[in-house]
């Protein structure tokens, strides 16, 4: 029995692991009902796997059976793999067993689609309800919405879970049509819209009365597969910007597509997909925390992010007329745009300079990355870069990596044999 459970856990974890969403943040649930668990708003990582990704939630599929046949997905109908399922009770039991030992922060529950979208969605909700009601579990739950599920079920899902998500997977309608012919753009975007408006309504209602139960307190997120279709970074970043602005998403995840599956609909192996993914995340952070907009980072002339420079440095190099910036006078918004100054260090600069002007030596103590920042700032009028901003060597000095080392992390580990050659690296399970 135990080995059977072990096997199923393996298969269902294997099917879920390509969903990159990992965070357990954004919700602070107290253990108020004498049950088990709490959610920390900062999120807590519990361990890291050998690919360097954090493990925070028990990420599994309810089942890897699926009626859909999406080209990028490991669980697609036409893929010849073993199909198994967990019952809602088993999911709950596993979650609690792991949680009590502090292995995890909560549950991330996804699934292949069996019978119908509604039936599948009901199964997921049942598992989560068991946790919340029977076990009085107050830990974090991230629940996947099944595209095309009844709006009433979507609403229920948000009441039990901390975060809900439905994966957009492909940036454009055309790509979705090509690679996931069973799903329509509307069946994916529909639930996202609904969740977005339910969150807005819930927020307003909770202002009136604190007794109104929270709806998806940690908001919603989505995932985009990068590199399976021909979209440019500009299209992707612009899409993310819209998702953040119009649908108020908490996170957009990017998943580099590394095709190990042969399907004529898929492109040839792209170059350095992990580096591209990394740059997209950097651009994403600039959108969310640094006040940048997509058109500042990318335009028609340069539709893709520079692989050698982080997007902020790239932007700064294109706008040298704005620099150097006097650190003692610049506004918070201006400070945020200096390469080497992050949100924390900008806040610390503002706080520290109230007590007196800051010199170059002070800046290092405040946590500013002088390696990059020194070319773009002055402190008490002093410039700390060894060459001026006009220097043609500036770009090469700012290129990533200590002492121009060859990038190691981001190349594909080609020497690693791929066990199952039919396994696609990115699933789009829901």
């Amino acid at each position, binding site marked *: 029995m*135990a080995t059977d459970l072990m096997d199923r856990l*393996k298969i269902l974890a294997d099917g879920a692991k390509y969903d990159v969403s990992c965070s357990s943040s954004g919700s602070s649930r107290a253990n108020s009902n004498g049950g088990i668990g709490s959610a920390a708003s900062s999120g807590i990582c519990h361990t*890291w796997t*050998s*690919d360097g990704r954090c493990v925070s939630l028990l990420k599994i599929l309810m089942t890897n059976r699926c009626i859909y046949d999406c080209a990028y997905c490991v669980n697609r109908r036409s893929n010849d793999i073993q199909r198994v399922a967990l019952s809602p009770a088993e999911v709950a039991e596993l979650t609690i067993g792991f949680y009590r*030992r502090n292995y995890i922060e909560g549950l991330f529950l996804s699934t292949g689609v069996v019978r119908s979208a509604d039936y599948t969605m009901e199964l997921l909700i049942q598992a989560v309800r068991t946790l919340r009601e029977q076990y009085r579990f107050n830990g974090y739950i991230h629940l996947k919405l099944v595209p095309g599920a009844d709006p009433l079920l979507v609403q229920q899902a948000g009441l039990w879970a901390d975060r809900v998500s439905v994966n957009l997977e492909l940036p454009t309608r055309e790509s979705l049509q090509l690679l996931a012919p069973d799903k329509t753009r509307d069946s994916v975007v529909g639930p996202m819209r609904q969740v977005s408006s339910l969150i807005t309504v819930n927020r307003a209602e909770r202002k009136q009365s604190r007794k109104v139960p929270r709806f998806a307190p940690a908001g919603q997120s989505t995932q985009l597969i990068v590199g399976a279709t021909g979209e440019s970074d500009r299209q992707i970043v612009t899409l993310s910007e819209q998702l953040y602005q119009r649908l108020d998403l908490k996170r957009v995840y990017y998943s580099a597509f590394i095709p190990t599956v042969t399907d004529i609909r898929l492109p040839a192996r792209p170059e350095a997909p992990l580096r591209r993914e990394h740059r997209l995340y950097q651009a994403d952070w600039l959108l969310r925390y640094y006040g940048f907009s997509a058109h500042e980072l990318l335009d028609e002339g340069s539709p893709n992010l520079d692989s050698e420079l982080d997007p902020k440095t790239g932007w700064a190099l294109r706008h040298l007329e704005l620099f150097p910036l006097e650190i003692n006078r610049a506004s918070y918004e201006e400070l945020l745009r200096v390469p080497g100054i992050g949100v924390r260090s900008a806040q610390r600069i503002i706080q520290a300079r*109230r*007590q007196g002007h800051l010199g170059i030596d002070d800046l290092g103590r405040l946590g500013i990355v002088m390696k990059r920042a020194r070319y773009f700032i002055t402190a008490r009028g002093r410039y700390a870069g060894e060459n001026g901003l006009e220097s043609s060597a500036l770009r090469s000095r700012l290129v990533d990596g200590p002492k121009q080392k060859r990038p190691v992390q981001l190349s594909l580990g080609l020497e690693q044999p791929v066990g199952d050659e039919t396994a696609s690296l990115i699933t789009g399970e829901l």
Partner: protein
Amino acid sequence: MSGCYTYDGTLAGLLTLYARLLPEQITVERISAFPLEQHSLFNSEICIATDQAVAEAFWQRLTKRLSTNSLKLLRRCLLAEHPQQELLIYHYLLLEAEQGRRIDGMLAHPAVAPVWKLSQQVAREAHRYLGFVRFQQLQGGLYYATIAPDHRILLLIGAHFAERFSDQQWVIHDQRHGEGILYDAEKQEWLLLPMEVTAQPDVTPEEVQFQELWRSYFTTLAIPERRNLKLQQGKVPLKVRACLTEFGG
């Protein structure tokens, strides 16, 4: 009076020392706990005797004087394991005596920045250990975890675990510093105690099963094509792995 001072290594001892030296604004080169390390042959060390009453009165005054932020900073630094933390805190308190609450904003001051950095290190480690604690279910129902952190972070993580696992009996044992937290689920209270290992923990059969499930789950999660051991080691340093189930601990 200036030079090297020693105290008995307790918190009360250190607070007594501060209470005695601060009002005189004495220049201090070194503060060390018993037993003395022979650093300098020619400096005679002055030993400050612990006085519980003085220490308590001093701490009372301090908690009233300092802002919430400074107090938090200070508490973390007192829990740190750093060769010079006593001296760093002393310099910080000297500046505080002079500047009062203005010190909160003086982040770049040479007496403040190191204290802030140390406090940051302690806070980071405490946060990491919210994730790195691994409980094992023992015969009799107790959940037992061992950790070996650099700093004495137990006091910083106790409340988190007390809330989260309020319905289970648990112990987190800091083997490096020989202390542990014992949580009593009935009284819903936790206590920091000196602790020693006496025997190998006797785990339940269910525990063995869950550990196996967890290990195999953990191995499955890695994507071979994205393998990046360097990144992993940055996140999970080798020194913490001995206590982590998934790394064979």
